[in-house]
């Protein structure tokens, strides 16, 4: 027997932390059918029962205007779980209870969870559990994902609840609305939850209109009063919620003042943005300082290994040069990547990230993007494929395509090892600074491209932003670790697959036809043949070939360099060419995986081609500027 449990709640109520608590590491990420909103599931056993948890997107209402709301509503309506857990923030419960009341209208097995109870206690908020249970007529559990309080009890309650069948209707909306509801209920087929749909119809939900019986005309029932009634329905729910809270909760006035002081600085209208950049700089500095010893150790280890194996025969050369040197040169940067995601994880977990969207929204708006697409683009710092895919969540088509097309300019983690290698060679004394400049440039290039694409390719209006700013939280180590692992593991998978294959191909091209001298290899011939294009930028044939192979995946640039020079420590690049090269690499071409994603998401060949041509053009121009200016200065 498997019990399915759906987790529903407002955004930022600690739903994901609670989910992590419930299922631990036994979780996996999938997509909802048809959309790329991530669907997180996990299973665990409790008292010989298998509990299958599904983490639904954070929402405020089951009326659907966004894709997140649609996903949650469809799941609850068409495939109702055995138990639905509605998670409510103990510090701001009003909106949570509103959602709970809506969920109850679906006639589901509902448990109300009041989460972050530890913080509520600290703030002097008293919650009377039995009073809540009497008023809401559902089991109530007080939990804290942070301390683990109430988790055991939640499991018990789930087991006790899932057998129950019919539940009484909770809210009476008054004679006017109730009579309309019962009239409208006749307009739906029996297979649906008719009361829920009737209410949604009055609330103006277009989706409910589509589920009406074929030849029914509801305009006579709804007439002109629907919008007034919709307000009345919402008001009834809120009045109920406030009454419940009045009798079951004692609040303490004037709490959270220290947090307000922090927020005053972080979202300050003048110094807020400089503070954001300062924090990013700190994050990069941390990335280098924390990972440097480990990176050095791994590099030395691989170096030893290649020396021991040698490269006298074809087989030993394949193993030591092609596989160990090629793949190893990429793997040795993994500690840095994990360190960077650790720092970004802290920013996200603490609740700082939405504040950046708040600060940047006006600027994004002038690029015809929203804070929402800003968040999508932030995913691109992990991998451009995920930001291209996540753009599906944007409801506006013009904004979606723009976001997809500018995604490749967000400096993804695959570019980190390339920058690290070049910075290590050419700017050993200014690592964090050089890295910081590359990220600033990446943001500037993304913004510039959004501007150009909006001017040239499409035109339109911007879409609304309704976003909650969560309380600041002290990030828990386990949540940050989960964040870091979920984003960094992708990199390990790539090292074992595409980078391994590419390294072997590059080895073949540099080994044949003349193993004794790399200057006569196929790789050299290709590089020298194309070198004239890059002559103005001052690139050697090794660079040209590496860039060509790196078109498949950016890490291959590192692996190619390592093989052409017989190890990273043998490479010499002067600072001007290094800067030119990094700027070129920042934009020059989306990797194969990103191009494939762009093609499938836009369903046309036009956009991948635009993307390649445009990115080659703009990065060549920018790199040329850097080369010319650099040579004038030095």
């Amino acid at each position, binding site marked *: 027997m498997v019990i399915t449990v759906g987790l529903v709640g407002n955004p930022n109520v600690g739903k994901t932390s609670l989910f992590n608590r419930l299922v631990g590491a036994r979780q996996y990420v999938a997509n909802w059918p048809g959309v790329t909103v991530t669907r997180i599931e996990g299973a665990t056993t409790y008292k010989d029962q298998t509990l299958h948890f599904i983490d639904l997107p954070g929402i405020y209402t089951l*009326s659907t205007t966004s894709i997140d709301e649609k996903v949650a509503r469809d799941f609850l309506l068409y495939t109702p779980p055995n138990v639905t857990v509605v998670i409510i923030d103990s510090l701001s419960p009003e*909106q949570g209870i509103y959602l709970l009341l809506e969920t109850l209208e679906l006639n589901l097995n509902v448990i109300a969870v009041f989460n972050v109870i530890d913080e509520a206690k600290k703030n002097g908020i008293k919650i009377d559990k039995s009073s809540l249970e009497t008023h809401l007529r559902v089991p109530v559990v007080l939990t804290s994902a942070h301390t683990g309080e109430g988790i055991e009890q939640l499991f018990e309650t789930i087991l006790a609840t899932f057998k129950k069948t019919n539940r009484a209707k909770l809210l009476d909306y008054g004679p006017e609305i109730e009579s309309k509801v019962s009239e409208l209920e006749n307009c739906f087929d029996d297979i649906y939850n008719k009361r829920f749909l009737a209410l949604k119809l009055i609330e103006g939900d277009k989706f409910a209109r589509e589920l009406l019986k074929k030849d029914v005309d509801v305009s006579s029932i709804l007439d002109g009063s629907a919008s007034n009634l*919709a307000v009345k329905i919402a008001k009834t729910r809120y009045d109920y919620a406030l009454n419940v809270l009045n009798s079951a909760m004692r609040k303490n006035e004037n709490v959270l003042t220290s947090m307000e002081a922090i927020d005053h600085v972080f*979202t300050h209208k003048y110094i807020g943005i400089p503070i954001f950049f300062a924090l990013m700089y700190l994050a990069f500095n941390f990335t280098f300082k924390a990972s440097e010893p480990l990176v050095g150790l791994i590099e030395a280890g691989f170096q030893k290994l290649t020396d021991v194996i040698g490269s006298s025969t074809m087989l030993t050369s394949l193993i030591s040069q092609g596989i160990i040197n090629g793949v190893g040169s990429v793997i040795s940067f993994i500690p840095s990547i994990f360190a960077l995601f650790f720092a970004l994880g802290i920013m996200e977990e603490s609740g700082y990230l939405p504040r950046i969207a708040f600060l940047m929204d006006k600027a994004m708006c002038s690029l015809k993007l929203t804070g929402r697409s800003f968040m999508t683009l932030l995913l691109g710092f992990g991998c451009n494929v995920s930001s291209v895919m996540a753009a599906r969540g944007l409801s506006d088509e013009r904004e979606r395509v723009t976001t997809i097309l500018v995604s490749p300019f967000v400096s993804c983690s695959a570019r980190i090892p390339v920058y690290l290698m070049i910075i290590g060679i050419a700017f050993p004394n200014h690592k964090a600074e050089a890295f910081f400049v590359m990220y600033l440039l990446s943001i500037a290039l993304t913004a510039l491209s959004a501007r150009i694409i909006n001017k040239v390719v499409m035109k339109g209006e911007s879409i609304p932003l309704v976003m909650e700013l969560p309380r600041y939280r002290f990030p828990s180590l386990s949540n940050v670790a989960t964040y870091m692992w979920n984003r960094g593991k992708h990199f390990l998978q790539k090292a074992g697959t595409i980078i391994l294959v590419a390294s072997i191909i590059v080895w073949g091209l540099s080994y044949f036809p003349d193993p004794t001298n790399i200057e006569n290899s196929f790789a050299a011939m290709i590089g020298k043949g194309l070198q004239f294009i890059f002559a103005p930028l001052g690139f050697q044939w090794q660079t040209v070939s590496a860039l060509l192979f790196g078109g498949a995946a950016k890490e291959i640039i590192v692996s190619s360099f390592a093989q052409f020079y017989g190890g990273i420590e043998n490479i010499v690049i002067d600072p001007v060419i290094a800067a030119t090269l990094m700027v070129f690499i920042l934009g020059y071409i989306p990797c194969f995986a990103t191009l494939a994603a762009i093609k499938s998401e836009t369903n046309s060949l036009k956009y991948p081609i635009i993307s390649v041509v445009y990115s080659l053009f703009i990065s060549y121009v920018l790199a040329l500027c850097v080369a010319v200016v650099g040579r004038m200065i030095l």
Partner: protein
Amino acid sequence: MKLSEAPTGVQVEVLHIEESDITPRLRGIGILPGIKIEVLKNAPMGDPRMYRVFSKVITLRNSEANLIEVQVSEDSPLPLTFVRPGDYKVEYIEGGKIARMNLASIGIVEGAVIRLLGDRRVQTDKGIYDVGFGKLSKVHVLPMKALFKADNAK
């Protein structure tokens, strides 16, 4: 008054919301006629802005806040830039330490009784001062008359 025009630090009551695509979500968040909203602060360039609805902090762009018709709550303190000349009690001062220190040096502190004279001149215990628009907008006051009435009612 539109919600987008309400000054920061003020509590407003929602009167009416113009129907649009996001109205259901606004209702879900609790933005409904009769509900009180606190205007918290502006982003750089004055857009978007932060509001408190019940205990949640929500950001709305001015283009959306324009759909919401509000009035200032009766008992809400108002910034000095929003009131007629007269006697007022300072309820609270918005902003960080530096702004508070500057205002304290001319006798404007929380709890003080001051007289607004017009032309942005303020009379305090320490004398009469010309105060800039930016600073005045940070000082939130209640009229002395209303306070007197409230005391009598008790």
